[in-house]
């Protein structure tokens, strides 16, 4: 938030507006409606932002179904399901927080926001565990490059290769019923896995980024709630953050079955 210069504070029409209504709005309702419409349009941009990834998913899946059959064996469905529950629960607490704010129950707002934040953090921890598993088996595209950025070596950047742990891949594919793969076919399948892992990390990574941003915004809102900034006529920040948080949930509701469940 930037500094506002003095004349912004001057109510323009003789002070009949509530003090939290900005100078350029006529009424609290107009201000609230504007914020809400703005938020929905922002959510619209978010939907289209993710549309690129869903589009890539659809195109790649339509043309290479086998890769998805192979690929989804490498994801941990129980962890994904757990995260789904966590995120939906956090949506509930968020919705309850908005309700509490509308009803002037400030202590409930604080508690419910705190629970929402905790759920968001839990989600991130579980996501971290999943990512760690992938990293340990070299399943991240361009992993050597990433490792190189964080190392002290001052050599040329290594090529962007995808070289997962062959034994690990073989075991998983055997579990999936591909017991008798010769080396050449295995190499081919590993090669194809690159795009699958690419879409996995792009989708879940961008989603996780949204969760992190959401948690950050929630923390700010929580502090505002602790300071007693909200009430039945001024709950816009809680409401808007809630809409954003629900959208993040909404996207996960699609990501989860598309990546983890469909064989």
């Amino acid at each position, binding site marked *: 938030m930037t500094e506002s210069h003095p004349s912004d504070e001057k109510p323009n029409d003789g002070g*009949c507006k*509530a003090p939290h*209504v900005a100078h350029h709005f*006529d*009424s*609290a*309702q*107009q201000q*609230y*409606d*504007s914020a*809400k*419409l703005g938020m*929905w*349009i922002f*959510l*619209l941009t978010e*939907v*289209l932002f993710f*549309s*690129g990834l*869903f*589009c890539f998913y*659809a*195109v790649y899946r*339509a*043309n290479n179904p086998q890769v998805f059959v192979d690929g989804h064996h490498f994801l941990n*469905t129980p962890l994904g*399901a757990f995260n*789904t*529950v966590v995120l*939906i*629960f956090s*949506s*509930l607490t*968020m*919705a*309850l927080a908005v*309700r509490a704010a*509308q*009803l002037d129950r400030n202590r409930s707002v604080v508690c419910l926001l705190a629970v929402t934040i905790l759920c968001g953090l839990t989600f991130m921890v579980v996501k971290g565990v999943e990512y760690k598993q992938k990293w340990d088996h070299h399943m991240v595209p361009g992993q050597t490059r990433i490792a190189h950025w964080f190392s002290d070596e001052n050599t040329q950047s290594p090529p962007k290769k995808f070289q997962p742990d062959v034994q690990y891949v073989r075991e998983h594919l055997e579990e999936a019923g591909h017991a008798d793969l010769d080396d050449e076919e295995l190499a*081919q399948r590993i090669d194809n896995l690159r795009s699958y892992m690419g879409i996995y990390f792009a989708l879940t990574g961008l989603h996780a980024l949204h969760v992190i941003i959401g948690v950050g915004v929630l923390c700010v809102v929580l502090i505002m709630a602790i300071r007693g900034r909200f009430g039945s*006529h001024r*709950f816009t920040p809680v*409401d808007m953050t*809630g*809409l954003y948080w*629900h*959208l993040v*949930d*909404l996207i996960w*509701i*699609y990501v*989860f*079955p*598309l990546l*983890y*469940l*469909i*064989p």
Partner: protein
Amino acid sequence: MNNSSPSPQSASSGSDAALAHVVDIRVLLGVFAVLMVLTTITVSVSYFDFGALNLFVAISVATMKAALVALYFMHLRYDNLFYAFVLLVGVAFLGLFLSITMLDSVEYHPGVEAWQERTQ
């Protein structure tokens, strides 16, 4: 569109009227319960193979869940219809983008396959 946009003067009388609908707590808890049931269903059916239906079932359940979240948690059911319109525009454009791009890539895919066969 004129009527669906939030009207500036609807509450200009003062800040006494509530800004937005307050959702009944039983509705919120009920929606959460249904969402949990749907999650259980979609996870458990994933252990059975329905062939081409897999995708259909998963997307249908996800869409039901998404609709519940949007209608109740995001208040669309109680709010100005225009917000729902905005969300649907997003979904429609996603559909447009996805369908034409997919149509094209499926159409030209034989050229890619021929190349892959030759080089492998």
